[in-house]
């Protein structure tokens, strides 16, 4: 193995493990939904793992991200634990948000995750504001705003890109173009090119293969460093693919996407399979080592699911807690009870 590869082996294997963890998390979450053990619904990240992992590998815990309704991958890649994630998905007290957020609102402040967002494109302002704080407070962190191609139709993004460019903010807008805006092919809702839209604000734009974790990581590492030097903001369009439907219940999707197309992406462009092959061909890991990673993570995920299923729900007394910071119970407070 060449020297630089050996030096990077740890990072490569970490990225591989993270992608496998995300896939395992989503497979289990999907199963929980199918078995009617999970309240509500959820949006699977499977297929897009290289985007979250490639980018978050370039970040530190101090760096911030904002995430989307399809956010499990971002949370895990940014450092979240399987156990607490499953607890949140099941509405349990021990979850990241004490069961108050659920799948679409997981926030993990300790790892710089400012939260997933159930409004498509809704976090573009939050990410840009986090970058404003970095600049104003003299902190050297970078903020990555994850969003999908569907969010590029929202006006908010253009407003905040304009300000980010005017004020030279350290923010990276990372658009995961998975080809579908909910149940509609992206071609039908995007006029012109996405990179041109960022370039209209004089924001440097890049296009990267979102199935290639190393290409994603290389681009993100360079742009994050340049952000830290005051050269931001940046835009990356990452071409990727969503294996599941828009949400877990979106099963019959022939009307907008063929099974052949799905099979082709899974066979030819799966980010985990392809990166695994590369690790083998470069001698970074053996087949047995990769298989061991897979089974170890499978066991970890299964144990995390078991744990979450058995974990307690929040007590009823919590229902009006955390409405206001510094107020224990919001209902009496709002009627004028003194704190």
């Amino acid at each position, binding site marked *: 193995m060449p020297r630089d590869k050996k030096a990077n082996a740890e990072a490569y294997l970490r990225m591989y493990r993270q992608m496998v963890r995300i896939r395992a998390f989503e497979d289990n979450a999907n199963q929980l939904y199918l078995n009617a053990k999970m309240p509500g619904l959820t949006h699977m990240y499977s297929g897009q793992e290289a985007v979250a992992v490639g980018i978050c590998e370039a970040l530190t815990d101090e760096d911030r991200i904002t995430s989307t309704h399809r956010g499990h991958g971002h949370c895990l890649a940014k450092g979240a634990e399987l156990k607490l994630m499953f607890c949140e998905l099941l509405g349990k007290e021990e979850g990241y948000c004490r069961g108050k957020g659920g799948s679409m609102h997981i926030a993990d*402040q300790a790892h710089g995750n400012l939260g997933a967002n159930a409004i498509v494109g809704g976090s573009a302002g939050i990410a840009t504001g986090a970058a404003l704080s970095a600049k104003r407070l003299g902190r050297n962190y970078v903020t990555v705003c994850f969003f999908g191609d569907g969010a590029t139709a929202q006006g908010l993004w253009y407003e905040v890109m304009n300000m980010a460019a005017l004020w030279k903010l350290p923010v990276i807008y990372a658009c995961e173009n998975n080809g579908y805006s909910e149940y509609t092919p992206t071609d039908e809702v995007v006029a012109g090119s996405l990179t041109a839209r960022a370039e209209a604000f004089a924001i440097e734009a890049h296009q990267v293969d979102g199935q290639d974790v190393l290409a994603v990581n290389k681009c993100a590492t360079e742009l994050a460093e340049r952000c830290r030097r005051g050269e931001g903001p940046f835009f990356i369009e990452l071409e990727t693919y969503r294996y599941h439907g828009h949400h877990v219940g979106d099963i019959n999707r022939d009307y907008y996407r063929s099974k052949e197309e799905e099979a082709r992406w899974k066979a030819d462009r799966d980010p985990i399979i392809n990166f695994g092959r590369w690790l083998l061909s470069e001698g970074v890991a053996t087949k047995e080592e990769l298989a061991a990673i897979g089974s170890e993570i499978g066991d970890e995920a299964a144990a995390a699911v078991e744990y979450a299923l058995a974990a307690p729900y929040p007590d009823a007394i919590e229902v009006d807690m955390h409405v*206001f910071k510094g107020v224990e119970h919001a209902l009496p*407070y709002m009627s004028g009870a003194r704190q």
Partner: protein
Amino acid sequence: MTREITLSQAVNEAIAEEMRRDETVILVGEDVAEAGTPFKVLSGLVEEFGTDRVIDTPIAEPGFMGIAVGAAMTGLRPIVDLMFGDFLYLVMDQLCNQAAKTHYMSGGKLNVPLVLRTNLGATRRSAAQHSQSLHALVAHIPGLKVAMPSSAYEAKGLLKAAIRDDNPVVIFEDKLMYQDKAPVPEEEYLLPLGEAAILREGLEVTLIGTSSMRQVCEKAAEILEADGISAEVVDPRTLVPLDEGTILGSVRKTSRAIVVDEGHQNFGVTAEIAARISEKAFYHLDAPVIRMGAMDVPVPFSPALEDLTVPTPEAVAANARALVRGVPVHAL
């Protein structure tokens, strides 16, 4: 020591004092820097605090509101200037879906210490999109606090408390009151959110007035006094939290109440306060609680029409007189 200053000066002083006290306080909005806003409320602040902290934005209300939410989540304490209350409709997602819910959705991990300053008030001949009083919209949303200063004194004390609050607070100033003077202490003071004030004591009817409707109620009380009717005037000061104790205590004493507010009457603040009185002080009441809000029409431009839409002291006094004399009252 007190001196008389305008509501505009009071707001300016509150912001300047808090920006001196806390470096993380910033001002964000359209024309907040050199222009000092169209109302000139913020004049002079950019000279003292610079453009790093007094930040002029493009005309992009959802954008700068969203940026302020993110900044508030990561260590700054933004004061957002929304030039007209009517523009609230433009920022509703960032205010109500993001700022209001972040603390709750994150199970208490994240919070949004942000002040949204905006205004309300008709009769400035500004027509339907620059005259609305939309505080009921945001008071409806759990997670937002809502303050309604009724004079320079309240404007300063409530704003200082709002800036120090760790939650999103929306403050509505009546744009017709910016030049109105009131006694304001020279010494520092804060008015806690959630404490109503009894501005005039009385025995026969309670007049509850928010923002500039407090002055309408005070004038109505003077008219009533000339008629030999003793009216009490209560200013809730904040809608969220709402100091029910003070309001209910007054109504239990007078046994009659009129709620006056410049928001639309239907489904509005007057309805909410009247309902709480009816639920919680019903057996003390000698008459129905009367709502007096703005007429339920878009605010018209013509002075001849616009003046018909806002409660007046005479109308409040007429309703109070009828209540005290036991005559049925038909609200607007």
